[in-house]
């Protein structure tokens, strides 16, 4: 269990926040760029950062403990390995620093390498591996420290998306079995659903909500929280004086008279599609809206269409 108390990710933060990461769970820290994700990782790892706060692991305060003495492993967005050490030497490096006996070291290297499917490359140098393999190596190195806490700071951001998906599935299987606190930062809401047992939402260096992905998705406490889990934006409107919002996927095209539904008229301004989904951009009440619908779809720009949504999906704050 990793407990954060009075964490301020920015030097000028007015008040700090508290959070608890449970062992054996993957926590996805979600936030846009510059939300403080990397600062949070550095703070936990004990690296130089502008963030401040108290960190305790299993009720034991870490204080000013140096990074190498903390039970923390860290994987970066960039593929960070020792360039002139082989794969096996790289995996062994944290264990060498901790002066583990050679026999145990070798056993552990083989175990970790086969777990991360890089066992056949043990004698190669990092630059002879593909990007995905280099990042597997970095993860193996982080695990070799036998850390209670594993920090993954946007580890898959530099990989192409097919590789990301397969590695994501592997990581979930890998970490699901351990009793490690896994903290995975990302700016992609899909990661939150794919990996997260718990999620923590950050914005401008502050915690805005935490919980299971489904809970946060269904019951956002703020538009900012809703926005972080929405793709691409959320659609704002006013309803009897309240500020309300709808997710793009909850707005449907058509005219429906079922009582309890809400209706809108949208002037279409642009179309976008990725094959799977189409995004119809338009204006509702002077605000930019996006409607997400399944499959390839396009509507002539300049036409006005009817929209409706279930009242259950409307979030009013």
């Amino acid at each position: 269990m990793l407990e954060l108390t009075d964490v301020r990710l920015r030097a000028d933060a007015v008040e700090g926040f508290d959070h608890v990461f449970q062992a054996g769970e993957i926590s996805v820290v979600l936030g846009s760029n510059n939300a403080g994700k990397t600062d949070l990782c550095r703070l936990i790892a004990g690296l130089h950062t502008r963030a401040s706060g108290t960190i305790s692991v299993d009720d034991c305060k870490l204080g000013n403990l140096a990074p190498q003495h903390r039970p923390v492993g860290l994987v970066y967005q960039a593929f960070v390995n020792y360039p002139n050490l082989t794969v096996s030497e790289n995996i062994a490096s944290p264990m060498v620093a901790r002066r583990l006996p050679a026999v145990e070291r070798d056993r552990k290297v083989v175990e970790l390498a086969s777990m991360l499917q890089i066992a056949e490359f043990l004698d190669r140098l990092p630059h002879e591996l593909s990007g995905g393999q280099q990042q597997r190596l970095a993860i193996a190195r982080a695990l070799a420290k036998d850390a209670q806490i594993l920090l993954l700071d946007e580890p898959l951001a530099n990989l192409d998306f097919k590789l990301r998906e397969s590695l994501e599935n592997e990581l979930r299987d890998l970490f699901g079995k351990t009793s490690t606190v896994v903290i995975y930062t990302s700016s992609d809401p899909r990661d939150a659903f794919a990996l997260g047992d718990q999620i923590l939402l950050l914005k401008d260096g502050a915690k805005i909500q935490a919980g299971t992905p489904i809970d946060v998705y269904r019951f956002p406490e703020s538009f900012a929280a809703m926005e972080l889990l929405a793709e691409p934006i959320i659609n704002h409107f006013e309803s009897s004086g309240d500020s309300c919002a709808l997710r793009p996927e909850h707005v449907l095209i058509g005219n429906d008279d079922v009582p309890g539904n809400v209706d809108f008229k949208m002037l279409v301004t642009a179309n976008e599609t990725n094959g799977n989904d189409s995004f119809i951009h338009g204006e509702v009440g002077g605000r930019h809206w996006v409607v997400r619908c399944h499959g390839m779809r396009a509507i002539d720009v300049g036409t006005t269409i009817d929209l409706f949504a279930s009242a259950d999906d409307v979030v009013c704050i």
Partner: protein
Amino acid sequence: MRSLKPRDNRAWFGVLPVVLIVAFSAVIPLMTVVNYSVQDILDFNTRFFVGFEWYRETLNDPRFLSAFVRQVVFSGTILLIEIPLGIAVAKGIPRNSKLTPFILILLALPLLIPWNVVATIWQIFARPDIGLLGVGINALGIPYNYATDPTHAWITIVAMDVWHWTSLVALLAFAGLTAIPRPFYQAAEIDGANRWQIFRLIELPRLRGVLIIAILLRLMDSFMIYTEPFVLTGGGPGNATTFLSQYLTTMAVGQFDLGPAAAFSVIYFLFILLFCWLFYSSVVRNDDS
């Protein structure tokens, strides 16, 4: 399957300017020298073909051999000093300070001074009667005089070269160091690597490319050194600081032995080429293994 595109050889015209420049700047002069090197030239109209006679003579000339040994020792010495010192200086430059640009300009200053001026500065600086360095060392009780003592002459020339060129290595190494992403240092910190390990496992491998360039540049330049020892010591005392280029000049311009001097030049050229090739290929072969 044959390509459907018609062959177009006009692209060769694009290469023509380069071919012309290289021909006039390198190939033709080199061929002239090769031509001279196989002839005995009494005057411009009286020449005899002598084959490889001058080459044989040069390679058996004890003065050539001792100049060659001096040259190798000199290049080896300054590389052994300038490369580590340059890296050390580069590591000492602050990365993101307001002072950084000033330090870089200060470092670049010796590189901007013409070579004969550098030599003149040191000639005066090291003089035992009026030079600050020379008088200073003598005041310490050491009878320092670069004009009479071969060892002192050597130390002075090496010190001058180190002063003149370490900046180049330092600037290259600094550029290499700033290109290392911060996460590498943080990862090493988390692993518990000490400063020496960080240097050996992260910085040195990442500096490899710029260091290869630095070593090649310094190797070639120092092997051709002429102006500085010529001005500072004139090759003396005795022949103690006569390097290859100076011996060659004496032979070609002083004694007008064009044939032997040409053979000497070709051998000289081939040696520089050989050293650079040996160094580079050993480095590149290490990359493959």
